[in-house]
């Protein structure tokens, strides 16, 4: 039995800074796996390690990454949200319809995000006040939100070609070499990663997810926490929807079908637990990158579509297995 006296603990903390501490982090395994993938890919294709390809790959996951942030926080608090895909689509549809009816795109976007936030609050209500499970509530909302998209558009994508260029800039513009979408993504990720690690507000999310009863006994308003994480996740879907709209210049009522599994998978690969209490934004984003880079790489290598799913699934399974063993080795 080792009993860490405060002194020797101080000691370990001292040496653990820098590289050692990095190596101890849960995310390190994933970083290595992604690096291995990058190295393999840069041998397999001369086009892989180009700026243009990196940019294209990043663009492919950046907006979904914002939803992953919301989902990760929700998972940590012990919840889950199946409605992310339809709520994202609904944000596009609401903002698009408002714009087509003469509202300026900025106000339209804010209203759309507000509507998504309200949907999240509604789910939060059913979960925390009525006492239903996140799974079933968000499943119902997934269906309802999709229905609202269809109702609003008659099933037809909205062409929003006339969006003003300064609005399209959000989705299509660049600041220097860096696309605005990626800037937004990085800001959101860094901000939430910092808040989740360091602020007292978000620590309560961990406490609630780890043991709701213990958290409640410590005076944490756990229902409020769950309500807020549920709402935040939908609000971030709203943000993502608006960015997608600016990017594609359209609003598709069928957008994001199946997104929920992808998003949850990214968070889980990154270390989030479906039973709450653990997870990091950084890990979840690495999970997103892993999934997205695999897809992009298969397309870059022009692997036969009939093989792609098999390879993708196998890489996913191998990656989580390797990650699992790497984590186990490090204790």
């Amino acid at each position, binding site marked *: 039995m080792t009993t860490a006296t405060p002194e020797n603990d101080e000691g370990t903390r001292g040496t653990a800074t820098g590289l050692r501490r990095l190596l101890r982090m849960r995310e390190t395994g994933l970083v290595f796996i992604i690096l291995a993938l990058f190295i393999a890919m840069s041998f397999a294709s001369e086009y892989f390690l180009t700026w243009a390809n990196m940019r294209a790959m990043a663009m492919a996951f950046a907006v979904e990454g914002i939803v992953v942030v919301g989902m990760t926080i929700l998972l940590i608090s012990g919840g889950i949200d199946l409605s992310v895909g339809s709520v994202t689509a609904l944000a596009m549809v609401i903002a698009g319809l408002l714009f087509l009816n003469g509202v300026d795109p900025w106000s339209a976007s804010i209203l759309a995000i507000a509507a998504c936030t309200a949907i999240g609050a509604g789910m939060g209500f059913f979960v925390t006040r009525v006492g239903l499970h996140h799974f079933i509530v968000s499943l119902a909302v997934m269906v309802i939100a999709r229905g609202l998209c269809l109702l609003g558009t008659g099933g037809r994508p909205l062409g929003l070609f006339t969006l003003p260029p300064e609005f399209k800039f959000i989705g299509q513009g660049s600041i220097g070499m860096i696309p605005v979408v990626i800037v937004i993504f990085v800001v959101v990720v860094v901000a939430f990663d910092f808040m989740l690690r360091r602020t007292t507000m978000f620590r309560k999310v961990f406490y609630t997810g780890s043991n709701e009863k213990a958290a409640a006994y410590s005076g944490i308003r756990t229902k409020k926490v769950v309500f807020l994480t549920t709402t935040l996740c939908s609000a971030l879907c709203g943000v993502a929807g608006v960015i997608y709209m600016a990017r594609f210049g359209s609003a598709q*009522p069928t957008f994001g079908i199946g997104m929920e599994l992808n998003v949850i998978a990214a968070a889980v690969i990154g270390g989030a637990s479906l039973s709450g209490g653990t997870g990091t934004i950084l890990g979840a984003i690495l999970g997103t990158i892993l999934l997205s880079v695999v897809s992009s790489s298969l397309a870059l290598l022009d692997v036969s579509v009939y093989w792609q799913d098999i390879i993708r699934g196998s890489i996913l399974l191998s990656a989580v297995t390797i990650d699992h063993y790497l984590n186990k080795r490090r204790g």
Partner: protein
Amino acid sequence: ESKFQCEPGETFVMNVMVSAHPYWVPVYQGFKQAAAAMGCETAFSGTPDYDITKQIASFEQDLIKKPSGILLHPMQSDPFIEPIDRAIADGVQVVTFAADSPNSKRTAYITSDNLAEAKFAAEEIVKQVGDSAEYAVLENPGQSNHDLRVTALIDYFEQNYPNMKLVGRQATNQDSNAAYRATASILQANPNLKAMWIPEAGSAEGAVAAVLEADADVLIMHADVTPTTLEHIKAGNIHMSLNPNQGVQGFMGFIATFLATRPEMFDPFNDYKVSGYNPMQIPFIDNGFAVITKENADSFDLNTYMEGRDPS
């Protein structure tokens, strides 16, 4: 009294899968217009889901209401053999459209000729980029008409323009984000890519975004149309789209179904009276397709078309 008239209350049903898809709207308009001309009632049914079991259930529920005929878009061919045959045995005539169930006893099949579309697209691509260039396709494995559009184009190139080189073939399943990702990667790997053929409009939206972002000079052609791709055609980002003549599909679909319910109108040169099958057999009707270009794009605004029309 003309024989081309319904009995009072006589109803015809149009049954589809993924029933909220906008593709069906002009088809059903054609169906209704033909029905109105003959004094018939119509109903629109099917399942909003991509789920064969649910579509069969909805088809069987249609049968309970004893319509005269059903114009059916079967999600898959063979699973519908038994239900179609049972319907016909019970006196409900069935005609298929846009997807067929050839081994069933349905009397007619109306569709756009996907092979003709593919051939037209291939010739147009060659006309625009020459007969020795790199091209790519996006696809949606498992959706028969999309599969046909893609494979027919590839086959056509192989046979007629062997110098056309297929450099990318990715599944995007009508998801614009997946199409964006796939196209972006194809563009990276193939700087000399000259043309893309996309069997539907949802993927085209993602593909065009990727092409614009990469600032590549790639000719995009696709089938079907959405308001967004229409705008891209107007803006010259998409070269053209081949849009099935949905109204004709619905109109002719109704006529074929109506005819199937009135075999006695016709005394053909065959043995039907002895063999007992329906003489109104039409193995294939081509409803044709329209070519949408920058010049004629204004005529294809679905919102304008829908004004004053009941969507279902």
